[in-house]
């Protein structure tokens, strides 16, 4: 049963068709990948799902319910949390406070002490506990990526949207991240959709891959099949995937 569905989504910006009749479904409990060359519409799809962008037509369906009239701030309350490609942290808040803001929707009527303890545990789960009391501004990109992941987790979501979680990581770190994401999925019963350029991560991790190019779906299926799809190889100009 698909927990999250993008149904015939269309979105134009001026003359550019950012999403052209895109339909994709993410099965509950699975890890799905959304890939494609730069400018294919991957982050746009995330912004449409989280209602930062309003679709021209089509719909986002989460747990059987249309999000067409959902306010952007309600999305996370319903159970969809996300990270950002180029980081959207709160620079003047400490790392711990960033995660505490992430817990905004999950911490109502809870005691501050308990909320803080949970936030510290979440930070520890992504390996950033030692930075808890530092200001977010000034920490390395890779660390901040993890802090953002912790902030998204703090909302206790059912679906996690990860925008290029492996950005700026080397091979070993990518393998470690793959392990972490799988662990979080199992432990927290998450459904994950991730945008990623690192094919190594996508191939290791994803149960299903959806490929976009110029706003259109060009392939969709299990990673091994998608990897051999001529249209996909063409889109990447025989780049990373063929190698």
């Amino acid at each position, binding site marked *: 049963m698909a927990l999250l569905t993008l149904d015939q989504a269309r979105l134009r910006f001026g003359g550019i068709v950012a999403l052209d009749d895109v339909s994709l479904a993410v099965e509950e409990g699975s890890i799905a990948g959304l890939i494609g060359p730069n400018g294919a519409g991957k982050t746009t799809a995330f912004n449409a799902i989280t209602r930062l962008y309003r679709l021209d037509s089509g719909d986002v369906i989460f747990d059987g319910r249309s999000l067409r009239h959902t*306010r952007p701030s309600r999305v996370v309350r319903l159970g969809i949390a996300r990270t950002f490609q180029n980081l959207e942290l*709160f620079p003047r808040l400490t790392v711990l406070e960033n995660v505490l*803001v992430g817990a905004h929707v999950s911490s109502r009527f809870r005691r*501050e002490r308990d909320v803080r303890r949970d936030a510290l545990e979440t930070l520890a789960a992504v390996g950033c506990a030692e930075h808890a009391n530092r200001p977010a501004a000034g920490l390395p990109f890779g660390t901040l990526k993890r802090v953002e992941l912790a*902030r998204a987790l703090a909302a206790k979501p059912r679906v996690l949207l990860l925008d290029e979680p492996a950005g700026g990581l080397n091979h070993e770190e990518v393998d470690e991240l793959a392990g972490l994401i799988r662990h979080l999925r199992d432990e927290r019963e998450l459904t994950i959709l991730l945008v990623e350029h690192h094919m190594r991560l996508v191939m290791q991790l994803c149960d299903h891959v959806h490929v976009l190019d110029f706003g259109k779906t060009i392939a969709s299926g299990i990673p091994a099949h998608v990897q051999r799809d001529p249209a996909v190889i063409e889109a990447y100009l025989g780049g990373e995937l063929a190698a």
Partner: protein
Amino acid sequence: MRGRLPALGSIAAVAVLIAVLPFTLSSYNVSLVAQVGIFFVAVLGLNILTGYSGQISIGHGAFMAIGGYTSAVMSRDHHTNLIVTMLMAFAICFVLGLLVGLPALRLSGAYLALATFALAISVPQLPLQWSTFLGGTGGVQSHTTVSDRWIYGAAWSCSAILFLLAWLILRGRVGRAFRAVRDSEIAATASGIELSLYKTLAFGISAAYAGVAGVLFVMATNGFAQPTEFGIILSLQILIGAAVAGLGSLWGILAGAAFVGLLPQVSTSVPVIGSDHGRDVVFGLMVVLVMLALPDGFAGLLARLRALVRA
């Protein structure tokens, strides 16, 4: 808890000092320090808006005017107890602040500054428009007037209560939401924070604080509310006080309030230019110097000193 001891200790020391001062100072100096307490309330309120939620206002003198007139009119017409008028001013300005916060949602930065500036200019004109009710240029005389000591006690009691209230609001979920909105609206929204709710709430709270400061301000001018007292300069003084205090922190408010409350009086006696404007020149120069030396205000200085002590 141990980390809080120095903070609690300094608060206690300041509280004792403020409690003892009126017994040692002359009546004139008591009224000066009372003035600092009045600014304390206003600066604290503006800091919640500008420092925490990231919305600038050059119009808080308008809310002080509304609070002050509320008190004077209620006292004149109904002989209402002054403490009660403070609660009324708090409530009325809270609601008006929420309402002003709504159009402010569409503005930020320089545009918000200009819009609030317009507020500071226009509100003091209202008594001229409705001169029978609001006394026109002549102002409104409260039924009750109080002594300097009374104002001193009221101003610093309000400061203490409202400081505690601000601390309670800002230390947890709501305060973090304010600061999150300030730092990144996109990330705040993605975290489930309703921007319009928290931005207008910050406006309401900070206007309510200004309203209470306005009541005290009118008491300090012998219970006389007059349009000219609430000019643009007052709004600017509050903003300067908040900047000197340090935006986004509660620990410099006293310094910011003392700066705008005392400096204009003290600088009168500096014999630089020997004209009426000498005072303004000294005040302006001091603002520039302080902002150059302490870009994060007094609170920033305290934070740096604390880091030095720990290192």
